């Protein structure tokens, strides 16, 4: 644990230095890549995402909960315990829960079913850390989400409808920024081209270096709603899974860049 905190300190210092160096403009992917490179040099080869993934690995392998079990038997779609490349295959339908689940909700299901935890005992930061660990084992793998099961097809279609739905006092809808105004800026970041650029969906979960946050796709979706003063859908809820399924399927064939490292 001592080593962990020493590393955390080094990285924090490096991050502070990084922000001072941060410049405006250029392509956000290139910029993030540059920042990542600088951070790697400053910290001697360790990224914040490595620390989060290490924490996640610890949590994943520890025997916890009333059933005193680890999550190692959790099936993310390639069979129990097989983690390589699974992030690019989610969301998908699972026969045991009879639900389409994304990375977050699958982790949660396993914490409930394997470890015997109650839903209210599941801590969000633990799910995120575990998601980072699993993501680290999917880096470089392809995105292969393709809705084939009837349950997946149904949810994909609903996700698509939800993506175009406009509502609320600000007439909010995902598509009005991420389709119509791609590349334009309302603030620092340009609106990403969710349906046209496969890199966008392929880098979640991601670390946001500008504010030191570890986010999964669920956090990203929830923040999009909140930024336009809309109530966000609950964590692990179907609207989040439906939107993620839609976006990930659109990114079919993309190369996973995990855990993502973004502004």
């Amino acid at each position, binding site marked *: 644990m001592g080593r962990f905190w020493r590393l955390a300190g080094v990285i924090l210092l490096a991050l502070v230095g990084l922000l001072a160096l941060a410049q*405006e*403009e250029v392509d956000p992917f290139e910029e993030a890549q540059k920042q990542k490179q600088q951070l790697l040099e400053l910290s001697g080869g360790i990224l914040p995402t490595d620390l989060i993934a290490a924490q996640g690995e610890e949590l994943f392998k520890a025997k916890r909960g009333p059933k005193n079990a680890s999550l190692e038997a959790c099936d993310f779609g390639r069979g129990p315990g097989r983690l390589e490349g699974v992030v690019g295959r989610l969301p998908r339908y699972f026969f045991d829960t009879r639900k389409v689940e994304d990375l977050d909700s699958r982790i949660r299901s396993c914490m409930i079913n394997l470890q015997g935890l109650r839903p209210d005992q599941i801590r969000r930061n633990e799910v995120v850390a575990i998601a980072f660990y699993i993501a680290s084992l999917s880096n470089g793998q392809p995105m292969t989400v393709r809705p084939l099961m009837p349950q997946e097809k*149904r*949810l994909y279609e*609903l996700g698509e*409808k*939800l993506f*175009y*739905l*406009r*509502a*609320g*006092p*600000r*007439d909010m*809808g995902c*598509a*009005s*920024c991420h*389709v*119509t*105004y791609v590349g*334009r*800026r*309302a*603030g620092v970041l340009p*609106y990403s081209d969710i349906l046209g650029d496969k890199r966008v969906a392929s880098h979640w979960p991601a670390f946001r270096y500008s504010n030191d946050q570890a986010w999964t796709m669920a956090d990203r979706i929830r923040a999009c*709603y909140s930024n336009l*003063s*809309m*109530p*966000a*859908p*609950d964590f692990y*809820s*179907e*609207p*989040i899974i*439906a939107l993620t399924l839609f976006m990930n399927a659109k990114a079919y064939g993309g190369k996973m860049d995990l855990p993502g490292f973004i502004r």
Partner: protein
Amino acid sequence: MRRFYLPALLLLLLGLAQGQTGTTYITPELQRLIQAGGQNYASVLLRQDPAQALCSTHRNRLPAEVLGPFIEEQRKNIKYPADGKLMGDWKQGEAIFNTLARGNCFSCHVGSPLNIGGNVGPSLEKYGQRGTSEAVQRYTYEVIYNTWAYFPCTVMYRFGVGGLLKPEEIAHVVAYLLDPNSDFNTKPALKR
């Protein structure tokens, strides 16, 4: 027993009214999905108005046959300040224009001398050069009150329709943009 008829009747009428306008986007299945997102989320999304439903259905590009009636409908719901003045106090308009939780105009438009503007919308730099004629005032007021009366389904919020700004507050913003003495027109715009 009779007590149950009234709500049932109301629901029926509501259903008929919706069927008549033909502008529902939210199918029962989509409604169930949204409800699974939690009460707060559902309470806002399920209150979709018919214009929002049309924009959703047509993915923000209305076909010609829908466009005319849509704009007419949007024009009808514009309300004006009680005193009829479309230009208020530019100082108060400045605060609204430059505050994220109120107008948030600067996030999308260049022109403010106080905040670096975004480029989602067109630049409004030196907007006051358009003069202060009745037509310019009216256009500016109406665009802010109900953007969709001029730019159907665009991303800019319908500030009056959505209840984000009161008619008097919109008049203050109009003054901020048009008053020749406003800082918006006398000071240089901040750009990135």
